[in-house]
């Protein structure tokens, strides 16, 4: 299976605390990769390192993105990685609070509003509202919609279901598997494996900032 992106010996430090102690991992193209681990195990740091939100203290990030040979993107800015096709959904609230919902959905993603509403039609009545006035779950839907309906090849999703009603999570999972079928690559950072219909291809288990197992799901 072709590789989409990989980390080589990645170390991430927050001040004196080292969050990743030399992580190696490869994300297969057109597949679902799940990062499992407890809070504090380093899942979020892996996603942040891939998206360029935190710099690496050492190690490298290599981007294939469908090409044969990798390109080293360790020093590339976040926004440039985003333009390469790497999208991150952070675990915290990820909307622009003083922009309208419609502006949130279409900002730079190249999508039109109707496209962005496919996944969450319930947002349509909220389009003119300022995103900061939405409920926590609705803001999460806006953020998800922005990431999932955008053009990115690689979707990095931190705690997908956070704050969402179960029925919505089910819908999102269905949308994810459709995206993967269409050739996109997905990395999920989760507490547990996602249910059907999401077909998980690789599971990396993290513990205290290192990958302790890489396996196919059982």
């Amino acid at each position, binding site marked *: 299976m072709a590789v989409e992106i990989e980390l080589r010996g990645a170390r*991430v*430090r*927050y*001040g*004196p*605390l*080292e*969050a*990743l*102690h030399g992580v190696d991992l490869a994300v297969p193209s057109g597949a679902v990769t799940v990062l499992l*681990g*407890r*809070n*504090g*195990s*380093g*899942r*979020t*740091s892996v996603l942040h390192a891939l*998206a360029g*939100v935190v710099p690496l203290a050492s190690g490298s990030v290599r981007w294939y993105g469908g090409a044969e040979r990798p390109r080293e993107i360790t020093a590339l*800015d*976040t*926004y440039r990685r*985003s333009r390469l096709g790497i*999208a*991150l959904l*952070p*675990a915290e609230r*990820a*909307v*622009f*609070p*003083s*922009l309208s919902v419609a*502006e949130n959905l279409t*900002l*730079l*993603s190249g999508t039109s509003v109707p496209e962005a509403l496919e996944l969450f039609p*319930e947002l349509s009545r909220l389009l003119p509202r300022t995103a*900061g006035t*939405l*409920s*926590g*779950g609705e803001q*999460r839907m806006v953020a998800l919609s*922005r990431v999932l309906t955008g053009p990115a090849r690689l979707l990095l999703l931190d*705690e997908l*279901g*956070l*704050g*969402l*009603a*179960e029925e*919505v*999570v089910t819908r999102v999972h269905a949308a994810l598997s459709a995206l993967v079928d269409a050739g996109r690559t997905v990395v999920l950072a989760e*507490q*547990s494996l996602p249910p059907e219909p999401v077909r998980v291809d690789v599971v990396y288990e993290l513990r*205290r*900032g290192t990958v302790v197992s890489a396996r196919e799901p059982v």
Partner: protein
Amino acid sequence: MAAAQLTALLHQEVGLEGAGLQLASLPLDLAQAGLTVGAAAALSGIGLVVCYRATGVLNLAQGAIAMVTAYALRQTIVVWHWPRALAIPACLLVFAPAIGWALDATVFRRLQRRGAGPVETLVACLGVFVLLVGAAFLLWGPTPLADAPSLLPSSPWAVLAVVAVLAAGVAAVGRWTPFGTQVRAVVDNRRLAELAGVDADRVSSVGWAFGAFTAGLTGAVLAPGLRLDPYGLPLLVMETMAVAVIAGLRSLTAAVAAALALGVLQSELTQFHPGGWTQSLLQAVGANLFVLALLAAVLLLPLRFAGSERRAYHAVLTGPATKPASSRAFAGRVACATLLLMPFAFRADDLRAALQVPALALVLLSIVVVTGYGGQVSLGQAGYAGLGALFTGLLAGGRLPGLPAFPAPVALLLAVVLAAPLGLLVGWPAIRRRGLALALTTFAVGTAISRLVFQQPAATTGVVLDRVGLLGQDRFFYGVELAVLAGALLLVRALRRGRLGRALGAMRDHEAGAAAAGVDVPRLKLLAFVVGAALAALGGGLLGLGGQAFDPNAFDPVLGLIWFAAVVVFGADSAVGAVLAAALLVGLDAGTVAGVSAAAVGALALLLGRMPPGGLAGLARLPRLPGRGLRAAAAGEADEGAVRLTELGRQLAARVRLPAPAGEPAPAPSPRPAPLPRREGERLTARNLTRRFGGATAVDGVTLAVPPGRITALTGPNGAGKSTLFDCLSGAGRPDSGQVLLGGRDLTRLPEHARARLGLARTFQQIAVFPGLTVADNIRVGAEQAARRSSRQSAEDAERVLRLLGLTALRDHAAAELPTGTLRLVELGRALAAEPAVLLLDEPGAGLDRRETALLVELLRSLADGGLALLLVEHDRELIDELASGVHVMSAGRTQFQAHGQLQLRAAGGRFGEGARFGEGGEVRHGG
């Protein structure tokens, strides 16, 4: 001052200074004159608005950039004889934007990347202001120049045409290009904008360059009408702040309309000549119309500025939580004491100068209390200091009606007593404001006090600030000042360390969380401002007595801003820092020339983005590992892989029975201690609760009961109104109709903190902890405030809660350093320490890992078994199944379905509500 500049502009236009009679007979010309002032104010006002919209910063230095550009234009055209066709583009399109670009690249970008709030950016702007004014002073001298080249015919219509073109251009960019949205996105949430592919650095550079261009344009257009000197334009732009504020920092049309209205009104006011005191009052009003308008605007308008208040600023403003005294803190105190004792050995005139140090230290200490401890931005402390001096002088001079002349010490004490309640002037508005809105409010009040009181001869005649007897000897007086300062420092220290200090810290870090923990936030704010006003007045009175005269310029609002900046750079929450700042301010000016201290503070303010949180004091508190505070703050979340975490994990593992995670043996269950302070559980009832926002009804006639000894769940689709209902129950929001009852008691009209004290505890969907407090103090706030425990008892209660949640090892860590899951436990601990009868938990399981969830389940169950009433908002059906004995499904503002226990919920099938009983808003039966 700038008021004089505006008046000068007016008179210049009309051509005759003091020609009152002629003016009165020519209303049309008058309107024309008003238009001139109005057009100038409109240009500088929309400059502020445009810059704010482009950068998210209310740029106090806008006028300074305008002034420097005007000087540059004069330099190139008049001195160097460049052709205008070259000089004008060079100055307006290259020089001014380059200043903006450089400011962004070197100062503001850094601040915004780490999420600095309005306070830090304001202080940085002030640094720019001071340095640019200082540079102009050095390069071109203080003498006003009358030969600034004019670019436009001298008519208000020409200025208005520039205003119209600028406004139209800005509106067009905002509407028809994606750039406008990108700018707003970057201002709103810089990191997210980068994730969405926006080159935030470029966008903010362009924003700053454009903001500086508008400033330069303002300078070039207005300078010919004024005489060009280093102070006039910068102060003029500050003066026109009213225009920007009335426009809500947003609407260009409103800014222009307000500016023109104020300009015309100001000139019309000169028309009336009723004579006597009315005339002098009218004159005072006319000369200070823009300040009065600013005051009225900040007191009467709602002041909601996009984005600016939402950002939390505590993390940057103050350093890490107070920890047990370190050797370095001790060294700091020794240095401070030595510095303060040195003046006893000084020569007479040096000692005279040094008299200001302890007095100024007291004023700065007042900023530490209000802003550093309480988190309330207060830019008006100079006003209170001046009032202290003024009242002391009036009381000592026997000028207050019905009161005899008091000896100086008595007069000083009485002045403090008089000034303290005036703290309510800003305290009241502060109840509803924070961030930039509060900064503007306090600045407006301070400026109004200065203009309408200190600058009025009638108010300051007969002021006596002589020192007689022993106090007349400077050495003795200095000793007295030191004793007063020492007393104040001890008082502030006690305030900081005690129950009140924890409450202040909680309010500073998370207002809603503090209210939920039982802190009476409005009262505490008032208290902070009253104490601040008293301290400032004490310092101001001593300043006046030291100099033995009342000098209105010693309490100028701009000087007050520099004092504020000094406190912030030295560490807003550091009392020692305030004393050192006072010594620096006084020492530099006395040792060199006046103004050097301001330049030093300005230079330090520009470095704020490179300092750790808490300014220089934060720098001193850093552990010896390089770069610690900086990185942690920049990362915003030290959440991953904290070594301590694993320790917590191990503790939790020892406590919790687990559904055997892969590869790890399940630890033996440990017997659960139940040592929690607790009162009898009570039934919480909601009757017909309705809450509307504008047109939408978020909660629509909901009736439900939360019985004791059970766990009740509230679930439903996103946006159904669950969190709003929660807020109505806890008191964070008021229902439009309906009732909330605890036991038999009606809580509907009680504020949140009062409900907390009656036994209603809650947590938040977005975790509400106090990052600047330690874990133990976070929990202790709940015990002290809601459960009203004594200090010793609250410490014991907090320890018990820490043990119960397995947090003991983390007790002395600042909450800011901990990961999400742990913070949920800390927040829960704070709620438990409140000794609740009812516990409301908003998505308690969100973001918890398996172990933490298991701990939570076990804990909640044992709490319910102990008789507590629990209500959970939760999406996780497994968790609900496992815990809840009653479930309310909420949809579109109504509770539509109530299940009793697990079987019914499972029977409800894939989606809640299908094939289930509906009972819209009906009375709920529990445990049936």
